[in-house]
């Protein structure tokens, strides 16, 4: 039984991966059908995982409220908002819009969620400026070079033509050295993703069993 418990998940994972991979490379109706079926199943499992996530969120924040931990008021607001949106979005009445297209859900989205997300995103600007002031300091030759390049790119983005050559310098910096570095990193990352995926497909990485 222990052997079955250890080998069955691994065998299932490896077989599924190989089928989907084969469906990608080999044009065959049966393989395509099996591969598509597995991908659809994965989408359904991911959707079900949302339920698990929902219960986890409820459990964590209910515990915070019960134990009156710091920030428990926010947990109360979170659970309340979650329940309100869930109740509104449920499709009990035939013919009426439900889910994201419900007018109330749309109102919540446009007047609460979108502004809050935009505001959080705007906070990044303040953090960027403090991080930039901390990072771009002349400590040695490399940091001095980084400072000069950053100032050139910033100045080149200024939309008034005080110094005509600045936009051209900025273009060159973005197109040549910056792009070269980015592509190098991306190539390395692609290789890392490829090898990690191969290890997953071969079943050498198995968190689901000991």
């Amino acid at each position: 039984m222990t052997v079955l418990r250890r080998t069955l998940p691994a065998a299932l994972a490896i077989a599924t991966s190989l089928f989907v991979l084969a469906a990608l490379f080999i044009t065959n109706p049966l393989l395509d059908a099996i591969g598509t079926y597995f991908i659809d199943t994965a989408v359904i499992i991911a959707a079900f995982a949302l339920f698990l996530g929902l219960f986890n969120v409820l459990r964590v924040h209910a515990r915070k409220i019960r134990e009156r931990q710091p920030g428990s008021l926010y947990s109360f607001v979170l659970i309340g908002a979650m329940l309100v949106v869930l109740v509104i979005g449920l499709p009990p009445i035939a013919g009426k819009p439900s889910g994201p297209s419900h007018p109330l859900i749309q109102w919540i989205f446009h007047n609460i969620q979108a502004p809050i997300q935009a505001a959080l995103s705007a906070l990044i600007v303040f953090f960027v400026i403090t991080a930039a002031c901390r990072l771009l300091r002349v400590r040695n030759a490399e940091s001095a070079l980084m400072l000069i390049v950053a100032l050139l790119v910033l100045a080149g983005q200024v939309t008034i033509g005080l110094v005509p050559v600045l936009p051209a310098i900025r273009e060159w910096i973005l197109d040549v050295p910056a792009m070269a570095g980015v592509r190098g990193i991306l190539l390395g990352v692609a290789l890392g993703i490829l090898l990690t995926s191969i290890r997953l497909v071969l079943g050498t990485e198995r968190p689901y069993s000991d």
Partner: protein
Amino acid sequence: MKEIGLVVLLLLLPILFFLSSRARAGKAGRLRSLPALEKLPGLVGRSAETGQPLHLSVGVGGLGGATTAETWAGLTLLGQLADEAAACDTPLIVTVADATVLPVAQDIVRRAYLRHGNPDGYESTQVRLIAPDPVAYAAGVMGLLERQPFTASVMVGSFGDEYLLMGETGARRGVRQVVGATDPRTLPLVYASADETLIGEEIFAGGAYTRKLPIQIGSLLTEDWARWVVIAAILVVAVFKILL
């Protein structure tokens, strides 16, 4: 295009097996030093002594999409840190942003405690889903870092611009941060706020450096070989274009 992909895959597989067998025989050579990975056990020890928890994030990506590999890299490090935390009875808090990662992360932490004979030490609330949206996730982690003192924060996985919200908060609170990311847009932000960084493909080296399994070391070496081949190909094509 598909055929090229298949050819590349079929070429890499035997190289991977060959280099893994060399690693198993102890002929792999030394891996270069990655200070971020070498400092991880020290963070667990420090957390054990101070009694303050360790925070770990596996990124805002999920399993099953384009960010699977980066998320997997974060989960690999989670496995190692959970093992050490369970052995030292260190409090560990894991935050995730994707529901598909939640059960996997919970299982990894639970198994670590079971392996060390301390099943009661594991609580399911140690692994928390904050929010599916990246910015909302970052806001949740910000709140966590502000309200509770942490010894260190290890964040390895797929991150976007929202990382800076968490990184700056941790930096302001004096939390030691070890961060790894692959997105070139995020890397400057990581470099500005973290104490130790894992840049690009270095996040995939976590398993080889911590667990030292032959297949993982072989995988790293295969990456190196493939990288040299790509460099050679680029140079050849560039020379070809110049001459023609």
